[in-house]
């Protein structure tokens, strides 16, 4: 089979490096919101700190999004909040982050009804954590973004934020690293197996992923898998899974922009 084009289809990547940063930051922001929620519910003494961190991360993430947007100097972003698009993962994410931001702000102020902030945080943080995976999996035309990423992304998102918490010497974080890492590894294996044993298109996608960063992907997997072995060295135990999760997430976002149309 031989194909030639006159003019080319629009197959270039639509998400670029700022989007990768966004996917990293949103994992942290969503994860931080989850931690703040838990802290709030468990009346953890550091809940104000976590709320502040959550706010900072959300703002940072929003700034990244704004920089990434080619429409950054048009005030069109407001339309997200003027429309009702619950089927759009980005709409859900935007509301999730905004609600988390507002709730965190009041938690930090320690003003207002705690029950309301807790409720809002539960919903908002859940949305913020889940939406990146949803934004990918919604595209049934992109074979690397399988339904498995719906679980893989929240998991690795939590792993990201907990690793950083561990790095920042939050005692409770340590015990979560290994389980989250191993759960992520398991999901990555499920993800790969799903591709390798799927239909023609899934297998093409598997080959494609292996051909475009397969080694890096394997490295990410290994980094997460060795966590139980190295967990005694605090800094390393935090950085290794953090790197692993980030590599895997970034590759899935970056390489996954392929679709096999017309081949």
């Amino acid at each position, binding site marked *: *089979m*031989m*194909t*030639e*084009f*006159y*003019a*080319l*289809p*629009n*197959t270039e990547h*639509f*998400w670029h490096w700022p989007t990768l940063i966004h996917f990293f930051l949103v994992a942290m922001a969503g994860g931080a919101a989850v931690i703040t929620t838990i802290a709030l519910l468990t009346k953890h003494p550091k809940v104000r700190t976590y709320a502040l961190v959550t706010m900072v991360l959300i703002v940072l993430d929003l700034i990244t999004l704004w920089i990434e*947007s*080619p*429409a*950054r*100097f*048009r005030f*069109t*972003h407001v*339309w*997200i909040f*003027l*429309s*009702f*698009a619950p*089927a*759009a*993962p*980005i*709409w859900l994410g*935007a509301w999730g982050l905004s609600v988390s931001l507002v709730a965190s702000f009041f938690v930090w102020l320690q003003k207002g009804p705690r029950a309301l902030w807790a409720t809002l945080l539960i919903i908002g943080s859940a949305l913020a954590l889940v939406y990146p995976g949803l*934004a990918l999996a*919604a*595209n*049934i*035309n*992109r074979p690397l973004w399988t339904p498995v990423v719906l679980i893989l992304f929240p998991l690795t998102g939590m792993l990201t934020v907990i690793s950083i918490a561990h790095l920042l010497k939050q005692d409770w974080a340590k015990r979560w690293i290994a389980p989250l890492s191993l759960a992520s590894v398991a999901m990555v294996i499920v993800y790969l197996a799903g591709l390798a044993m799927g*239909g*023609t*298109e899934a297998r093409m996608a598997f080959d494609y992923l292996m051909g475009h960063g397969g080694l890096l992907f394997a490295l990410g997997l290994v980094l997460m898998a060795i966590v139980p072995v190295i967990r005694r060295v605090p800094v390393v135990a935090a950085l290794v899974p953090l790197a692993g999760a980030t590599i895997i997430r970034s590759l899935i976002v970056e390489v996954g*922009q392929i*679709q096999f*149309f*017309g*081949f």
Partner: protein
Amino acid sequence: MSRMAMAIDLAACVGCAACSVACKHENEVPIGVNRLWIRNTTIGTFPNLVTEFRPEQCLHCENPPCVPVCPTGCCFVRADGIVDIEPMKCIGCSACIAACPYDARYMHPDGYVSKCDFCKHRVAKGELPACVTTCPTLCRSFGDLDDPNSDVSIALRGARRVDLLRPGLGTGPKLYYLNAPAKFGLVGEEGQRSS
């Protein structure tokens, strides 16, 4: 209500790209992105060959995956079935680009998503889209599917066979390929049909 649609007779199309060039000027499509392109594919071995010339563009799906993922409602389906974009509502998130299974959407350098809009400004004046008007092989027909006397309805009725792109995805394209030259239909779509 109407359902605007297009049909391209692949038995006549020679892949000359007049449609693509016309679109470029009519819609001021920037160099580097395209609303319409031609995919020429050859299968077989010498001397038993089939070459298919296939223009591709937005298919104005009846069940368009690009629309629900848009967070601002800037991607929408008009009452006449044209899948359209309101550029002033677009935040450039590219979710719709990701969702389109046909590579039809691009980011305009001015910061909004764009694609074929069936030349809605011409349709409003009762004219045919620019690509349809100029096609030297007259292989394109356009019109309302709900009107049995429209060009497109007539073309569909007269076709030896009708094929859709990636039918397995359930997008319900309203761009129909007529009389594909290969026995099995559109080249590169064999897998789509069996799966």
